[in-house]
């Protein structure tokens, strides 16, 4: 993609950023309303993608029209206390929003430990867009969404922040795997404890 094109794309993205932020705010309000009766929610957060992050991703060759093709221009996340809560949140949000993608992220091999989360792509409902949104060409039709537990997040965020590139040396790989395994174990155990301590030993988290 030519430099000139990327400059135009950057300017277009900057000019529409306030609309994306407004949508993120509206989606956050709606998601809070959707989940107001759901317990064990640690946090609900939405954001509009930052300009530099967008430009870096948009410059990849596979995006011929990044302004309408990048689906994480607006993205949200719900973090739950316990593993069992993920299914509850998933069911509610799939009822509220039309899902076009749903993927459970987990290590491919049973012996491995690493990133875990549920990823969705939802359609942006028309009634959550402002009037100005309809006037602008190539606005995104979808937004991304993640559901994960506190322990999944505790592993995912710091290791993402470390931003290591390429293949770390074996010692670092082993340490990262140990952290992931510890988070996975703590997550499973906390869920089991919560089940045991649930009212009347029902085994269901309330």
């Amino acid at each position, binding site marked *: 993609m030519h430099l000139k094109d990327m400059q135009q794309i950057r300017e277009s993205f900057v000019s529409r950023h306030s609309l994306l932020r407004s949508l993120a705010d509206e989606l956050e309000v709606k998601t809070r309303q959707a989940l107001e009766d759901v317990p064990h929610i640690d946090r609900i957060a939405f954001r509009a993608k930052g300009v530099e992050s967008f430009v870096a991703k948009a410059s990849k060759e596979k995006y011929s029209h990044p302004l309408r093709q990048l689906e994480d221009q607006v993205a949200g996340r719900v973090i739950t206390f316990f593993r069992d809560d993920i299914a509850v949140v998933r069911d509610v949000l799939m*009822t509220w929003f039309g899902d076009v993608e749903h993927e459970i992220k987990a290590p491919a091999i049973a012996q491995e430990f690493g990133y875990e989360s549920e990823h969705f*792509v939802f359609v942006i409902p028309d009634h959550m867009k402002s*009037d100005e949104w309809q006037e602008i*060409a190539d606005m995104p039709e979808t937004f991304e969404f993640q559901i994960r537990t506190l322990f999944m997040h505790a592993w995912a965020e710091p290791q993402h922040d470390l931003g290591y590139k390429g293949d770390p040396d074996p010692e670092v790989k082993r340490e990262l795997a140990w952290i992931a395994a510890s988070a996975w174990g703590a997550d499973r155990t906390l869920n089991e404890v919560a089940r045991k301590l649930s009212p009347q030993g029902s085994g269901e988290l309330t």
Partner: protein
Amino acid sequence: MSDALQNALNHTFDRSRIDNAPKVTFQVRSDSANRAHPIRDEALVVAFDDDKGSESALRLAIRLAGAMDNRSKPTLLVVSVHASPREGSRRVLLWTFPQEEVFNLNTSSDEAALEMLDAFNRESKLRKAALIEGPNEATSMLNARVLDFQSTAAERAVADLWIVKFLHARLQMSDAEGTQLLARVLRATHTKTRADQAAQDQIGAAIGALRLIGDRRVSLDSIERAYLSGSAAATFSGASRPEERAAMFSIDHTKFDDMIQYRRFALNNGVVVSAPFLEVGEGKGVTVDEIDGDRILRAEGTILEEQVRTRAS
């Protein structure tokens, strides 16, 4: 296609205002890599593959026949592709024109003859349309704008035929979201019109009617038109965002009753009365009458439980 037919379809398109019709979201296979969907897949072929478009149109016709399930009169399905003002995009339009009986006056011979004919009526109230627009990309053609005058029908099978059964789509506002929004708007309207008894009566009557409306699809706009006027309508309209008002949904009655269950009255003597919505009114357990400009509440019933509390809640 003849010029006359082209003009007729263009005229029908312009009159339909489908550009502003409500959107539905296709229920694509979210576990498939290509977002597979029986209508979207064919629409992409019709729009962007000239060689295979007619095969896709045939598959759409077969799908429509299956959705109609021999319960409706024959319908003409028209599938057309149009240029889009958006770069790289095309528009696919699916129309159905139901067959209806029409009079035909034949004056070609010496005698005028009036006969009955079956014809596909382009102005029929039962016609339906879906406009699918976008480029040939994974992120596009996930929605359709829909015209369907039967989508608010009381009978669910009729209401669902086009959007749910044929298009395999869902309304963009879910029943849960719409019900929550409606309840919140009604509560806000009720609170803001506290000093306006006529408005309060309208809102009370509207809530009573909505409890009995069944599965019929509604929108905030349609509710306002049907049940409210004057200050009640203005307050109701102002309690939601303009973008939300035309969105259709069905009322989730359990949720609605949970959210609009009680009316709470604080009286000038410190008494607080919290009454189930249905128990307020003439001949009910709680009555409210206007006497010399004051609203007087009377409550009657058998006490089942009594508590001592720090304050009324």
